[in-house]
């Protein structure tokens, strides 16, 4: 598939996240789409050095990036908080083998949520990660999000642990219907 050229809009803090991923030599990006990740997903697709894989469910991404790491490539998964619960048993792959893993999670079910169906998983996201052995960061500003992404990559790939960066709903903006 030929990549469409892409440029971030002025002031889009995902540009800094993307720069951090490039600096850390991310070669595979797996995702279940979310509106909050849309520009970052487009930027990765437009980048010739990042192999993007759209998933049918988030747990595939955990296994996929473990496979990438076996082959010597760094990866990142983009998902929404509702997808975290889908991954729980697959997270045991990371813990059992010491795989590094980084995921950036757009949060729902917290700040000004409109849809009550988002609340249970949104409220359980951080604890789910912690109980699965993750280091968890929470970003409330774009500046933090980029810095935490860089730090998460280092923690994961230098210190062999799974790391989640939660991009708060206050940062992303509550969805209006």
């Amino acid at each position, binding site marked *: 598939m030929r990549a469409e050229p892409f440029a971030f809009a002025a002031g889009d803090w995902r540009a800094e996240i993307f720069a951090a991923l490039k600096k850390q030599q991310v*070669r*595979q990006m*797996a995702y279940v789409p979310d509106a909050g990740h849309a520009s970052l997903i487009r930027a990765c697709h437009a980048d010739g050095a990042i*192999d993007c*894989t*759209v*998933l*049918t*469910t988030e*747990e*595939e*991404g*955990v*296994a*996929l*990036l*473990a*496979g*990438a*790491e*076996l*082959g*010597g*490539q760094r*990866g990142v998964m983009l998902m929404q908080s509702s997808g975290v619960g889908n991954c729980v*048993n*697959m997270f*045991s*792959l990371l813990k*059992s*083998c*010491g*795989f590094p893993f980084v995921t950036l999670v757009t949060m729902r079910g917290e700040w000004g949520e409109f849809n009550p169906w988002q609340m249970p998983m949104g409220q359980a996201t951080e604890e789910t990660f912690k109980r699965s052995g993750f280091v968890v960061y929470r970003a409330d500003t774009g500046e933090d999000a980029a810095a935490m992404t860089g730090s998460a990559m280092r923690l994961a790939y230098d210190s062999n642990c799974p790391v989640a960066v939660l991009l708060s709903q206050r940062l992303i903006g509550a969805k209006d219907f």
Partner: protein
Amino acid sequence: MIGRREAIAEVLKDRPDNLLVISGLGSPTYDVAAAGDVAQNFYLWGAMGGAAAMGLGLAQARSDARVLVVTGDGEMLMGLGSLATLGAKAPANLAILVIDNEAFGETGGQTSHTGKTTNLAAVALACGFRQVATAHKQADVASVKQLVLEERGPVLGVIKTASDELPRVLPERDGHIIRNTFKTALTNQQ
């Protein structure tokens, strides 16, 4: 009926140097280990439903290698969506081999969906796999071997096998050791 262990032994006999194998939990892990416990095998003991997706990540990272995922019908059914993901990415160097005994063999032999209505080869084809093949008798195994080792991927082979329980052949169980052994073998190959 095809014997699963003999069939896997035939597929992996004289395996090419660039072949990397990921085995799904349960009997496929025992079958692959029984055929030769080499460093280029990554044995899963859990992560049910993840074998094919793991194969995709590895295949994308190592275009110089041929990646073969050997798994069971139950494991493949749990990751059925990953066949759609593989079809969409169309990795030329990835093959899936399903040892299909139409049963959940580790848990008492309950009939699986492939023993009822599901045809995994047809599912893979509908997801965009380039080729599929099913072996119903021993004489068909050679052509399935040729498919999964040599044809342009993504391809999926199915070996229909008996649901009897065989003696377990247990390779390394510590995931850290399995991962390090596999990665070291890859590094030495480069």
